[in-house]
C-alpha cells in the first residue's frame, strides 16, 4: 500500500494518532508528509517518544494537541521551536506525562485493561489537578476516547507499607504508525535495534500502519521467530518504502540526514522560512518517489548503513558539531 492510500484509508480528521519510533529513529516521515498533503485536521497526537513529525504536523495545521512526555529531538533539536511556541500560545495543547507513564498507558490498552499502576509521577506536578490539560480543554467526560481522570492515586492494599501508587488510564489510539526493518507478507514485523515503545503502541492501536524497509515471505520470518516482535494479525496496512523514515534513521539500513534535519528544524523555528520549506519539501512533492528523486541518489547512498555498525560511521554529522 502507498503512503497516500494508507492515509486515505485509515487516517481521519480528529483521530488519536500514536506515533512510533524515537526522535531520530524509525519515525515514518513518509506517512506524516502525506497527512500534510491530504490536509488532515484536528489530530490528537500521542507517543511514547516524540520527534520531528510533531513539528511537521503542527506546522501543517494538522494538530489539536499532543499527549506525551517530551517536546524535542534530543541533541538534534533540544526543543521543538514551533511546537513549543504553539503550546505557549495555547494553539496546541500538551498533556504532560513521564516517559514510562506513556508506555504504561499504551501497555494498559495493549493488555485490554482500563489502567496500570506506577510509582512514577507520584509527588510531582505531573499529577497536579491544576495542570490537567485534557480537562481544561474540555475533553474529559465529553470525548469518550479520553479518560475521566488524568491519574488516580491509591494506597497499595497488599503490603504493610501501603505505598501510594499512581494509576494511569489506558490510551487507545485510533491509528498507530510504526516502522520496522523487515516485514512478512502478512505483516509479521521484525524491528532491529532498540525497540523504544513500538510494540506497546502497536498492540494498543485500533488500527496499525506499518512502514518498512523490506517485505519478505512469511516463511523467511519463521526462520528466526525470536527476532520478530509483532504478529501479523494486528497489522492493518503494510507500506514498504525505501527511506520511509528519512530524514531520520532505520537501524541497519540507513542513517539520519544531519544536514536535512538541521535545515528542517531551523526552518520550523523561523517564521520567514517555515512555509517555504513546507512548500518545497512537502506540498510540492507528489509522492515518496518524487521526494527521493529530489534528495538524489548520491545523498541517499551516503546515508546507507554499514552492517558492522548498523549506521554509517562516515555519515557527515557536521551540522551538529563544533
Amino acid at each position: 500500500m502507498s503512503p497516500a492510500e494508507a492515509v486515505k484509508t485509515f487516517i481521519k480528521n480528529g483521530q488519536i494518532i500514536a506515533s512510533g519510533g524515537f526522535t531520530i529513529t524509525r519515525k515514518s516521515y513518509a506517512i506524516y508528509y502525506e497527512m500534510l498533503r491530504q490536509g488532515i485536521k484536528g489530530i490528537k497526537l500521542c507517543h511514547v517518544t516524540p520527534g520531528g513529525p510533531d513539528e511537521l504536523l503542527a506546522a501543517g495545521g494538522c494538530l489539536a494537541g499532543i499527549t506525551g512526555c517530551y517536546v524535542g529531538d534530543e541533541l538534534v533539536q533540544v526543543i521543538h521551536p514551533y511546537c513549543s511556541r504553539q503550546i505557549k500560545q495555547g494553539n496546541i495543547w500538551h498533556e504532560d506525562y513521564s516517559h514510562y507513564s506513556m508506555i504504561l498507558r499504551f501497555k494498559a490498552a495493549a493488555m485490554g485493561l482500563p489502567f496500570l499502576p506506577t510509582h512514577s509521577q507520584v509527588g510531582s506536578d505531573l499529577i497536579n489537578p491544576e495542570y490537567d490539560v485534557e480537562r481544561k480543554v474540555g475533553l474529559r467526560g465529553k470525548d469518550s476516547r479520553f479518560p475521566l481522570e488524568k491519574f488516580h492515586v491509591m494506597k497499595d492494599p497488599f503490603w504493610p507499607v501501603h505505598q501510594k501508587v499512581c494509576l494511569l488510564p489506558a490510551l487507545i489510539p485510533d491509528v498507530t504508525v510504526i516502522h520496522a526493518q523487515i516485514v512478512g507478507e502478512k505483516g509479521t514485523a521484525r524491528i532491529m535495534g532498540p525497540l523504544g515503545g513500538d510494540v506497546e503502541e502497536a498492540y494498543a492501536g485500533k488500527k496499525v500502519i506499518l512502514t518498512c524497509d523490506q517485505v519478505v515471505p512469511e516463511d523467511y520470518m519463521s526462520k528466526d521467530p525470536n527476532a520478530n516482535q509483532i504478529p501479523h494479525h494486528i497489522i492493518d496496512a503494510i507500506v514498504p518504502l525505501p527511506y520511509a523514515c528519512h530524514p531520520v534513521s532505520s537501524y541497519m539500513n540507513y542513517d539520519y540526514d544531519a544536514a536535512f534535519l538541521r535545515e528542517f528544524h531551523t526552518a520550523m523555528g523561523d517564521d520567514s522560512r517555515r512555509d517555504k520549506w513546507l512548500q518545497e519539501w512537502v506540498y510540492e512533492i507528489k509522492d515518496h518517489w518524487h521526494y527521493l528523486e529530489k534528495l538524489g541518489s548520491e545523498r541517499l547512498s551516503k546515508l546507507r548503513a554499514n552492517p558492522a555498525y548498523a549506521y554509517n560511521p562516515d555519515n557527515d554529522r557536521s551540522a551538529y558539531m563544533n
Partner: protein
Amino acid sequence: MAEQYYSVPEMVVVETSKFVKDEMVIFVGIGLGLLTASLAVKTHAPRATILMEGGTVDSRFAHLPFSVCEPRSAYGCTVTTGLFDILGYNAGGAHADLAILGAAQVDQYGNLNSSMGPRQSGEPFDVLHPGWRATGSGGANDSASGLPFVVNIVHQDRRFPKVVDYLTSPGWMVKEFENGKVKWVPRKEAGLIRGGPVAIVTTQCIMKFDEKTKIAYLAEYFPGTDPGEIKKTIGWDIDISRAVQTEPPSREVINILRNEVDPDKVLLGSLKK
C-alpha cells in the same frame, strides 16, 4: 581565574563521573549524563553498565550518539530491548544504582523542573499558556522516582529557586494534592520508597543534601569561584560552612575525555553553546 587546561563543562563531566562507581548500573539520558558515564567507564569504573531508555544495556560507543535510541546508542550493547524493560524493570525494579539527570531548575530539596514555568519565577501560571517551555520529563521523572540521582545543571540565577515552578522530578520533599490543596511531604510518605537526589553538580559547584534537613548545602566550589558569590545565586539560605574547594581535574582525565570519550566533540561541542 588562572588559565586552565580544562573547560568548565569538562569539569562538570569529570566531577559528575566520580559519582559513578565501578560495577554500578547507571541510567543516563542524552547529553551530559551519557558523557559522564562514558568517561567513568573509560577511567575508574570499567565494569559500570550503562542503561539507556531507548532499550540498550551496556553499550560501548564507537561514536557518541545524538539520541538514546539512535543506531549509535546500541553499538556494542549486550541486550537490545525496549523502553519498558529499561524504565520498568531496571529503573523501576531497582536493578540500577544511579541516574544522571539534567534540569532547567533545581530547588532546595533536589526537586527538578525540566518542563515549564511562568514568565516570572514564583508566579502561578496557566498550563494552557505557560510562560516558558522546556522539553519536559522524558525519563527523568521515572528514574528520579525510583533511583538515587545526580543532577547536572548550568549555574545561572534563575535555575535555583527555593521551590521549582513546576515539579517534574521528585527530590526529598515532594507534593501531595488533596481537595485542591498542595501539601509538602517527605518522598517516602508520598509513595516513593526508593531513591532520591544525591548531589547537584553545577558549572560552579557541587551541592549535597543534609542528612537531617534534606536541604541542599554547598559541598564543593570549583577553582575560580567563591562560596559567598555562589550563595547570592541560590534561592534558599544555603549552608556554605562545609564547603571545600574542588581539586582541579587531572590532565590525564581531561585527555581521556577529549581524545577517547568524545574526540569528535559531539557532546563537548554542544555543551559550549
